[in-house]
């Protein structure tokens, strides 16, 4: 009985022979026979003497296909898995070991291998082609060995990470004679690529033991050679040829020199350190000198120079560059109006214009000789009108710039005030005596045309902010000099707090000279505010305004203007100035003056607060009407308390520009912020589209488009806004009537923002559109959203005041009218045990509000004093106590009373630390004014304690707690604790989007988050805003079904606030603008109060 192992010729053989090698390792190297059928690569029967008896049984148990073979003549028969196979004829192959008898089996596919060897006979067509392909693919890392392949010299090319193309080609193009091998096991056995040998493991072990390497191809042909086969680089077997005809060249004696004209070309932008200035340019540095500290002054040296052409004198200003010290070069160049010079790299004393370099580059010794660098202290190359000019400065008389500065005392009250505040000494009361204007002007007129050389320094105080008219130096372009003067004056004015009418008047003169009539008029009006006695300025301003308003100057025009329903700013200013003229002259129609006074009393009138006061002061001074004067004062101050100064009317345009240009760190801040915000809006819009929020014929999608449209319009990206809202306009007729009206309102809002219209214009616009509503029902639905929308409403949202009992209401109402008596009334109500706590809180709120609106700071201060002492003892309910503290904090914020604010914060902390914690709504009412005050004052003594106390309370689950947390996060931001603020805000947003909470609470929390985000740096608002936008669907509301069908109110409101948070107007107003307006507000208040005292004697 003969047994054989059935080799199937497929991948299953790998398992069969792996098992055999493990079970019977001893039989591998014994003689084997193979009975092969018609297909040599197909099934075969492998016979060995060891295949008998228990061995067969054992192997079969392990899954090895051992079959019993029956011989029939030349053929054989066997049975496998129940099927009998008969091979009519077989070929018998013998081998000394099983390994050499087995052929590799295909593994399928095109495996990626780490390394491959390509065996090719030298005379095969594939040898040359394979080498060329390798080189074309940049694979010159291949190495090559030469070996004798059964009498044929062959190449063995070794390639790591072999190109797939070559592997495939070797397998599929046998005519090329290339065989690719891949490593079969550890190291020594290489099998035809994409094949595997069933006994690779044992063979590899044997080969390693013998220090041999073997290749076995797909046909089972073995090539065994010594493992240490010599290898060479692929280049070593190449013989490059070049089909090019040689041309021999030889060197010839001789030298030729070329003349090359040196020129100035574009060079690296570095800050200059040297300036060559004429007298006027040097004088223009006064503004710089004013702003420098003594240490900074010492970093400049000046040398006065003459020239052979007698066109001097020149001033050589040199900034000594110190490492890690900020440079002042940009300011110098800007003020002097000339470019400076930078030291040429590689030389000590050659200076070139900034941003230029000498071309072509030269050797240093040649450069020194050409430009006389060794004989001169400075050599300056300049270019004028395309021609080079070389200044050689042989010697200089350098002196520190501080030697050129005279210090004088100033007579400006605001400057002195500030100086006194900052001084570490106690000063007696100062009285300031102004120099007569004519003396001053005369003194200035006699000044030298050019700055004087250094003089001894009998100095007292540094000259501050004293801007003077400077005579134009001969040879200087008068227009340029005038511009330079204007710039200096603008810088001085932009610093804020300038209360010298002469400065404004000087600036107005110069503005008029350069035909900037509107700005000249503003300057004269401001001059009139500070110095009403200078009548000629009123006349000049009136003339300018008359021209700008296109008026003829007739009396009839004034009657028309004073009764006009609508009036332009120029017309209003013209009217005011003419009223001042009439009042000063003692003439004019009383009716006209009275009506004019009434008009200018309105805070809505389109003029600056200064001009309004100038008019009212003139009118009441003329008539000696003290009551009128008092009313005017309180009306104006109340309006300022209520809404601050207007950047439209109270911020001159040139001041805005001057502020934008001043300083280096904030240059182009507006543009940069706009661009950043535009990018953020783009990102949010993309998020909205990706989140599927933008759909056709969907009302909310249109609200989304309109809200973003408003945002883009604010950022001056009108075209983008237009693109965005185009579909809304197309779809307009499809939507329900209320939505159509509301879409129209939003579109109108865009136009309103683009044209910078005022509040009155917006109210008119809204009224017109509401009138066009087809019926009352539609109008109601429109109003439902419009009144809630921050953009569409025309008045502040009203809240229902709690009702006081008649007696107390009467007392409070009387105190609201007579603010002077309010402190006493408040004291009585607080002390009265019969008054409920809610009534006390309401009275505090009303009286504080009326005192703020009255502009009577004294009364407000007294009210605050009354409250702060009594809150803890007189109001028992914690909720009303903290609310009252909140109202008081608002007053402290108006008065700038930091001490009072701290006391009130402590008061809230005390209440919160007691067992009876107020409700969230009460705390929110208290916290809001506190945060407002922190925005103004920054971190105060008690602020952190205040916030830390409230955070745990706000973290308790309950209605509106998320809203409180969002508000508190801004508080931490104000304290400079950014990580805490971020963490609190993120956590609150997460809770708002995920937690189960009532619709209204969720909306209030979302709104508070967005409101807080406005104060985060622009870039950092993006992530949280996007998160909220993506989760906008959770902000549902519970209005009537019919209303929900029209629009989702909360979502629309939140989208508005989202756009506000990303593209807000607040951020455009740089801190400097706000700082200027704050400063101006103080000046205005002081002046109004001073004028009022002159008339009323109080």
């Amino acid at each position, binding site marked *: 009985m003969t047994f054989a192992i059935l080799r199937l010729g497929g991948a299953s053989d790998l398992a069969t022979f792996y098992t055999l090698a493990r079970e019977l390792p001893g039989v591998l190297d014994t003689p084997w026979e193979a009975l092969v059928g018609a297909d040599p690569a197909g099934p075969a029967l492998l016979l060995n003497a060891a295949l008998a008896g228990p061995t067969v049984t054992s192997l079969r148990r392990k899954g090895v296909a051992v079959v019993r073979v029956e011989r029939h003549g030349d053929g054989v028969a066997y049975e496998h898995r129940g099927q009998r196979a008969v091979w009519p004829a077989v070929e018998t192959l013998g081998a000394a070991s099983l390994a050499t008898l087995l052929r590799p089996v295909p593994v399928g596919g*095109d495996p*990626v291998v780490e390394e491959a060897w390509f065996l090719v006979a030298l005379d095969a067509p594939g040898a040359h082609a394979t080498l060329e*392909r390798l080189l*074309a*693919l940049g694979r010159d890392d291949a190495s090559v060995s030469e070996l004798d392949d059964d009498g044929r010299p062959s190449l063995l090319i070794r390639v790591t990470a072999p*190109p*797939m*193309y070559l592997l*495939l*080609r070797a397998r*599929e*193009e046998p005519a090329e004679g290339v065989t690719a091998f891949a490593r079969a096991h550890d190291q020594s056995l290489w099998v035809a690529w994409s094949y595997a040998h069933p006994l690779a493991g044992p063979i590899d072990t044997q080969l390693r033991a013998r220090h041999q390497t073997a290749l076995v191809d797909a046909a089972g042909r073995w090539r065994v050679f010594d493992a240490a086969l010599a290898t060479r680089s692929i280049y070593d077997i190449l013989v490059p040829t070049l089909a090019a005809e040689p041309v021999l060249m030889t060197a010839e004696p001789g030298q030729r020199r070329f003349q090359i004209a040196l020129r100035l070309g574009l060079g690296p932008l570095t800050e200059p350190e040297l300036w060559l200035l004429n007298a006027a340019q040097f004088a223009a540095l006064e503004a710089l000198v004013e702003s420098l500290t003594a240490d900074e002054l010492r970093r400049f040296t000046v040398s006065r120079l003459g020239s052979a052409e007698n066109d001097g004198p020149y001033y050589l200003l040199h900034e000594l560059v110190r490492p890690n010290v900020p440079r002042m070069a940009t300011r110098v160049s800007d003020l002097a109006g000339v470019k400076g010079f930078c030291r040429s790299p590689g030389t000590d004393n050659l200076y070139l214009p900034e941003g230029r370099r000498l071309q072509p580059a030269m050797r240093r010794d040649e450069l020194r000789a050409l430009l006389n660098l060794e004989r001169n202290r400075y050599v300056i190359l300049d270019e004028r009108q395309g021609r080079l000019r070389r200044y050689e400065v042989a010697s200089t008389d350098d002196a520190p710039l501080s030697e050129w500065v005279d210090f004088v005392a100033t007579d400006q009250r605001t400057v002195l005030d500030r100086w006194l505040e900052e001084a570490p000494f106690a000063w007696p009361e100062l009285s300031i005596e102004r120099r007569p204007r004519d003396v001053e002007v005369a003194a200035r007129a006699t000044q030298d045309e050019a700055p004087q050389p250094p003089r001894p320094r009998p100095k007292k105080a540094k000259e501050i902010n004293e801007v003077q008219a400077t005579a134009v130096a001969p040879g200087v372009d008068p227009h340029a000099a005038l511009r330079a003067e204007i710039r200096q004056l603008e810088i001085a004015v932009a610093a804020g707090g300038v209360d010298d009418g002469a400065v404004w008047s000087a600036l107005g003169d110069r503005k008029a000279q350069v035909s900037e009539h509107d700005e000249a008029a503003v300057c004269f009006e401001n001059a009139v505010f500070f110095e009403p006695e200078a009548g000629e300025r009123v006349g000049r301003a009136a003339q300018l305004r008359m021209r700008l308003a296109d008026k003829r100057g007739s009396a009839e025009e004034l009657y028309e203007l004073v009764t006009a329903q609508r009036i332009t700013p120029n017309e209003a200013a013209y009217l005011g100035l003419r009223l001042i003229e009439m009042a000063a002259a003692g003439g004019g129609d009383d009716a006209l003056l009275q009506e004019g006074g009434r008009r200018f009393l309105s805070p809505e009138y389109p003029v600056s607060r200064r001009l309004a006061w100038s008019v009212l002061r003139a009118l009441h001074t003329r008539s000696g009407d003290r009551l009128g004067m008092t009313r005017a004062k309180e009306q104006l101050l109340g309006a300022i308390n209520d809404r601050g100064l207007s950047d439209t009317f109270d911020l001159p345009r040139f001041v805005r520009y001057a502020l934008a240009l001043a300083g280096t760190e904030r240059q182009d801040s507006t543009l940069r912020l706009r661009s950043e915000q535009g990018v953020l809006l*783009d990102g949010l*819009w*993309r998020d909205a*589209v*990706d989140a599927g929020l*933008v759909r*056709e*014929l969907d009302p909310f999608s249109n609200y989304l488009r309109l809200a973003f449209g408003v945002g883009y319009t604010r950022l001056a990206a009108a075209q*983008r806004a237009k*693109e*965005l809202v185009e*579909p809304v306009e*197309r*779809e307009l*007729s*499809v939507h329900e009537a209320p939505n159509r009206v509301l879409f129209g309102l939003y579109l109108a809002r865009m136009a309103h923002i683009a044209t910078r219209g005022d509040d009155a214009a917006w109210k008119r616009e809204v009224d017109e559109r509401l009138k066009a509503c087809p019926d009352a029902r539609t109008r109601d639905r429109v109003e439902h959203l419009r009144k809630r929308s921050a953009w569409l409403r025309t008045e502040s949202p009203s809240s229902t005041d709690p009702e006081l009992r008649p007696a107390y209401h009467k007392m409070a109402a009387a105190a609201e009218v007579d603010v002077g008596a309010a402190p006493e009334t408040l004291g009585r109500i607080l002390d009265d045990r019969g008054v409920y706590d809610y009534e006390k809180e309401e009275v505090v709120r009303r009286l504080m509000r009326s005192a703020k609106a009255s502009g009577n700071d004294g009364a407000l201060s007294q009210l605050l004093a009354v409250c702060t002492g009594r809150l803890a003892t007189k109001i028992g309910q914690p909720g009303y106590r903290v609310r009252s503290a909140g109202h008081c904090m608002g007053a402290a914020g108006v008065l700038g009373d930091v001490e009072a604010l701290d006391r009130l914060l402590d008061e809230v902390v005390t209440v919160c630390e007691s067992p009876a914690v107020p409700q969230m709504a009460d705390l929110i009412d208290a916290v809001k004014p506190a945060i407002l005050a922190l925005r103004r004052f920054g971190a105060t003594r008690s602020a952190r304690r205040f916030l830390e106390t409230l955070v745990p309370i706000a973290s308790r689950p309950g209605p509106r707690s998320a809203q409180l947390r969002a508000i508190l996060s801004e508080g931490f931001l104000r304290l400079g604790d950014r990580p805490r603020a971020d963490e609190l805000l993120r956590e609150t947003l997460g809770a708002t989007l995920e937690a189960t909470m009532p619709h209204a609470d969720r909306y209030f929390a979302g709104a508070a988050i967005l409101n807080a985000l406005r104060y985060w740096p622009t870039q950092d608002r993006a992530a949280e805003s996007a998160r909220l936008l993506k989760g906008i669907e959770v902000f549902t509301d519970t209005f009537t079904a019919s209303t929900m069908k029209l629009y989702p109110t909360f979502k629309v409101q939140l989208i508005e606030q989202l756009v506000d948070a990303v593209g807000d107007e607040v951020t455009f107003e740089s801190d400097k603008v706000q700082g200027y307006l704050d400063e101006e507000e103080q000046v205005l208040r002081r002046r109004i109060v001073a004028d009022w005292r002159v008339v009323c004697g109080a």
Partner: protein
Amino acid sequence: MWSLKELEREIDDIRARINRHRRDLEEYFVKRADELELATLSAAAQEPLLFVGPPGTAKSDLVVKFVESLGLGDTDYYEYMLTKFTEPSEILGPIDIDLLKQGRFVRRTAGKLPNAKVAFLDEIFKSNSAILNTLLTIVNERKYYQDGAPEPVALRFLFAATNDIPEQTELDALADRFILKIETRPVKDTHFAELIDAGVMNEVYKATGQKPWARGTASFEDFLKFKRYIDLSLGASGSLSGDREQWFPPAVFAEFRRIVRALETEDKVMVSDRKLVKLYKLLRTRAFLLHGGAVQQSDLALLAYVGNRRHELGAVQDKVRKLLGLTS
């Protein structure tokens, strides 16, 4: 529609006209032969083509002249620059409001993509997801939806351009529809004078209202007939592998496979099953268009344009040329 027998009588003339049309157009461009060849091939096979390159590399000009040279009218051509704000109604046409009031969601497609025979979409990958979905349906199925029902589009040739191919998975589906993508590079560094001469001449043509490239060498109908002929001939053999055995010699087919595998495994160029079939068809079309017979080794140069990502385009082009032993 034309039958194979009818087309066989005139297909050689059509082929000659289309090739002459391509060569004629080359006169008006500097070093844009490859782009024009691909544009012609894409039009003949009615497969979309993507131009990838910076602004000012004649992408739009090439398409416009190609269209004008075929004698198509303004209403047959639709060109649009897509932005993230572009919405379906800008491409497909606005909703007909009157019909909408009757409860029907019908678009007014006059002058919009569904009615155009040739379209050029600039900055195609800047569009938003709504547009991408719309375009996918149009490119894939040659249809769009009117009032919920599919309607065929007239579009036959689609060209698109982009500055870059963003690496965002949501764009992969559309990018894969563009089987061929060609990088248009500035030629000013190598053909400075020729570029200025040609540019000035173009300005003159524009100013004087001339369109000399519109010679009528080939017509839009020629391209339609050519496509029809290729479609019919692909199935003419009657057996599954008949077309390949007749028109794709085994050696060239093996080379085709090798190059595709090499690009996939080494350069990670994704060749989807759909793309592979389309490539086969494009190779057959190219072979028949350029030399009227079976696919040759040189036709495989088309594989130089199968790269998907921006960074792949140059590398794939270089590699395919090297594998095919092409020098330039």
